[in-house]
């Protein structure tokens, strides 16, 4: 697989999507924790 190839581009796209998903989950869990702590549950 060479940089610039179609396969390379698709793999990079999947990696970015996975990173964004994991980042979003980190933010979500943080916000949920704050909400739960504030509501005392």
């Amino acid at each position: 697989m060479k940089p610039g190839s179609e396969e390379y581009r698709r793999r990079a796209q999947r990696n970015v999507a996975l990173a964004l998903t994991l980042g979003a989950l980190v933010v979500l869990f943080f916000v949920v924790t704050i909400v739960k702590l504030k509501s005392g549950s």
Partner: protein
Amino acid sequence: MSDLVAYDERVANLDAAAVDNTAAVVRRIDPTVSDYVALLKPRVMSLVVFTGVVGMAVAPGNLHPVLAFVALLCIAIGAGASGAINMWYDADIDAEMARTQGRPIPQGRILPGEALGFGVGLAVASVAMMGLVVNVAAAGLLALTIGFYVFVYTMWLKRRTPQNIVIGGAAGAFPPMIGWAAVTGDVSLYSILMFAIIFMWTPPHFWALALFRCGDYARVGVPMLPVVAGPRETRRQILIYSVLLVPLVVAPWGLGYAGLLYGVGTILLGAGFLGLAWRVWRDQDDTGATRGTDKPAKQLFAYSILYLFLVFALMAAERWLGLVA
């Protein structure tokens, strides 16, 4: 049963081929992000999420917006996970039907094992998150929904009985109950009514589709009603279920859960549904086949989606406008 064994062997061979470095034969194209999104059946997911939102909207009580978002996310991911597992199991027949040939597994973009792992992973994650963040009742109903769709509908009923979508339709009917349970932590008569509406709506919706997609289902051996009992019986069953559906949809008004807007709206929408179901019944020759190009069945299929959307939109609108307590 032999078909299932043959399919299992085929899937095993596909995975073995991938391990043997002959994946090029199996994986013809490298997958994109949109292929994984397609595994989640986003169009089905949108209706599931919408009915889940309405279940939450009409439930008595309040849920913090962040927790409500998480509940909807879990419903969406759970529905998507069911879709991915369904595509893994049905890859053999998907490859033979025009409507499903373009899916990622038949196209060779995603391996069957990858779809299974993706689906199971998301299913477990969505149920666990619902249980930890929202409540156990909603998580239990979500697990029941996923299990029902995968094991009862996909693996047990779909290839065995023309009643597949009648009983299997329960899986698509659970989301408003899950939404309701996310807010209240329990199940009530109104949430059961919302379940019953979608449950009763599913047969005429899918049989209208099956009437003009009959050839596809027959070719792959899925015993949809038109394939097994013929188009005349299918048209009769569509009419019967439509007659049962319309008063059931109006029932929340009669029982005091919904207001006048909902009552009048659903009566008018129901008249349209019955009118189209009647046209589907009339659109047959001596053998039960369509007189033309199945236009009434296509119209009923399209209208049924709009109908369900508007019925649930009316429920939510009344609550948001303060027209019901």
